[in-house]
């Protein structure tokens, strides 16, 4: 991943607002993409996740020890913010989900309309898989970085993504 220079990070740590703005401008678009996809296209929730991410970044800058890349640190915070929000949403909607008909889920053999297929597929997979797909396919994270962010094994993430992509290919049909 491309990183912002150390001087900007150092200045932001010292409370320089312009440097913090530079950090935001540099990392927020990626953070937004991760949050938007992980929160399954919910703009309000993704906005909340990015807000929470940068508030945490601001408050924890002094604690960043440089053990991992700065981008990895920020995206880990984004990932955790998304998971926390999803967990809250899930608790809040628990009763509602029992009573509501959420529509048919997509089985692996079902044929899908090309226009809506990806949305249906994304709806049918877990938030972690949505994150994995976005971060790997769109943002070009390495499996080592993904492992660092999610706290899981790089090999199992590789397998998980491979199977997920195979499933998507099956649903879309070979091109």
């Amino acid at each position, binding site marked *: 991943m491309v990183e912002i220079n150390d001087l900007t990070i150092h200045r932001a740590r010292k409370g320089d607002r312009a440097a913090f703005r530079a950090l935001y401008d540099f990392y927020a678009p990626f953070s937004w993409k991760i949050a938007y*996809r992980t929160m399954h296209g919910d703009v309000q929730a993704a*906005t909340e996740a990015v807000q929470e991410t940068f*508030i945490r970044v601001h408050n924890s800058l002094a604690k960043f020890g440089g053990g991992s890349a700065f981008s990895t640190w920020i995206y880990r915070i984004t990932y955790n913010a998304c998971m926390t929000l999803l967990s809250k949403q899930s608790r809040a909607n628990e009763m509602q989900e029992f009573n509501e008909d959420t529509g048919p889920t997509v089985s692996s053999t079902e044929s899908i309309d090309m226009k809506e297929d*990806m949305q249906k597929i994304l709806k049918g997979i877990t938030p972690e898989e949505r994150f994995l797909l976005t971060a790997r396919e769109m943002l070009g994270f390495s499996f080592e970085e993904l492992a660092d962010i999610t706290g899981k094994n790089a*090999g199992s993430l590789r397998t998980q993504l491979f199977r997920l*992509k195979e499933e998507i290919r099956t649903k879309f049909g*070979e091109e």
Partner: protein
Amino acid sequence: MEQLQENQLPRHAFEQLAHIPPLPSHLYGTIIGKINRRRIMGRAVFGIAASILVAVSAFTVTRLASPGASYSAEVAEELSGVNSYINSDVYQANSSSYGYYDEVLYQE
């Protein structure tokens, strides 16, 4: 470890995955606003906590001081003597004299 060849997403799938609205422009302002609010709230909470701590400490110290405590006879007698002296005419006369002596001595 299972070795897997990198498989590609179908083009349509990738295009749909990549279709993401732009980052809302107002977001930075909202974040800074929240950071400032939380900082103010944090300071207010700290201030209130400090005030409560001081109040509780003062109350505890006051309560711990034995209200019914009495002086020993010797101290009481001494204090009584001091009290009589301060409120007596002798003290007034003496203090005037000291003032007079100071005036005379320093003028010389």
